[in-house]
């Protein structure tokens, strides 16, 4: 899911960085003191999640936890995702620095989609939590597939979506379990 340098055209990457700067400002302003530990812990979880790999369909898939980040942090998930991706790019070479903006927008959109779904309070929590986890992966995967397609890689990349559907199912289970755990242990972490 981390797009490497050289795939997306440079002007698009630079534009994505500019959009990211605006998104970080909007989502990060007026951050409260009590948000900081949550952001730090979620950032550490996101940073580590990409190292948890599962062999699947001849390739290797890994967790993202963008849905869970969206549930816990709301709009503040974006700067945390950006920071986690920046460190993953520098330390693990997951994704490029030039495409960091594109990757952050893809995955941030997943977190924001999950957050918006989580806010629909009339739905039961047992439905909202796994759906948010599912959306948190599906939205970035769809965006990535479209970006690859527009960059001239053909429609074959859409077949990868079937693999990400499996990741989304796994993530929905993990998100549901995490929400249930937080509800029992520390309910105030969930908005």
């Amino acid at each position, binding site marked *: 899911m981390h797009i490497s340098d050289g795939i997306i055209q440079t002007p698009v990457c630079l534009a994505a960085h500019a959009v990211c700067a605006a998104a970080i400002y909007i989502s990060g302003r007026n951050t*409260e*003191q009590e948000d900081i530990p949550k*952001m*730090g812990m979620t*950032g*550490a979880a996101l*940073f580590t999640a990409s190292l948890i790999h599962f062999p699947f369909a001849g390739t290797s898939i890994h967790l993202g936890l963008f849905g869970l980040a969206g549930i816990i942090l709301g709009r503040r998930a974006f700067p945390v995702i950006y920071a*986690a991706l920046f460190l993953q790019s520098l*330390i693990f070479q997951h994704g490029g620095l030039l495409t960091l903006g594109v990757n952050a927008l893809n995955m941030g959109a997943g977190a924001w989609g999950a957050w918006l779904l989580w806010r629909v309070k009339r739905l039961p929590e047992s439905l909202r939590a796994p759906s948010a986890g599912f959306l948190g992966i599906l939205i970035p995967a769809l965006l990535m597939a479209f970006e690859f397609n527009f960059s001239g890689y053909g429609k074959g990349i859409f077949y990868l979506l079937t693999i990400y559907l499996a990741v989304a199912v796994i993530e929905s289970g993990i998100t549901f379990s995490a929400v249930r755990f937080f509800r029992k242990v520390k309910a105030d972490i969930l908005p």
Partner: protein
Amino acid sequence: MLKQIMLCGLGLFLAGAEPVQAHQVTFKTVQNYPAVIVRAGYEGAEPLSWAAVSVFPPDQEHSAWQNGRADKAGQFAFVPNAPGFWTVHVDDEMGHKAKTVIEIAESFFDNRERSIGSGEKDSAGSLGTQPLIFRLLFGLMIIFGVTGIAYGLMARQSLKKG
């Protein structure tokens, strides 16, 4: 007599001209673990610039280990993974093809430990060469460090306001 002289002259001409017209290909090989460097040239030292190259591992004549092109100087390299007789085909796509067989001895791999060791030593300062657990801890240290600094700064601001 004239006919004999003409035939001798023609024979000498053909004998002298043959290597030039055939462009016999010569190979020079340098084996330096982990790579084998090959230079392909026409006889007379002209290189086979940008020739198509295929490298075949021992006992696999139909499954190429590597396909590519030589550089301007007719040079290319490959990294064998086993001892044996490796076959290299070159084709300048102008009608000149040649193949050579390169013997990779067991002793070629004797330098493996030393080469890998020196490689790690050269790039010891690079984070990418560190074990995964160190890189993970390094990243987590940065995240928790930044979180702590941000929390401390905000707590200080709150104290000042309070």
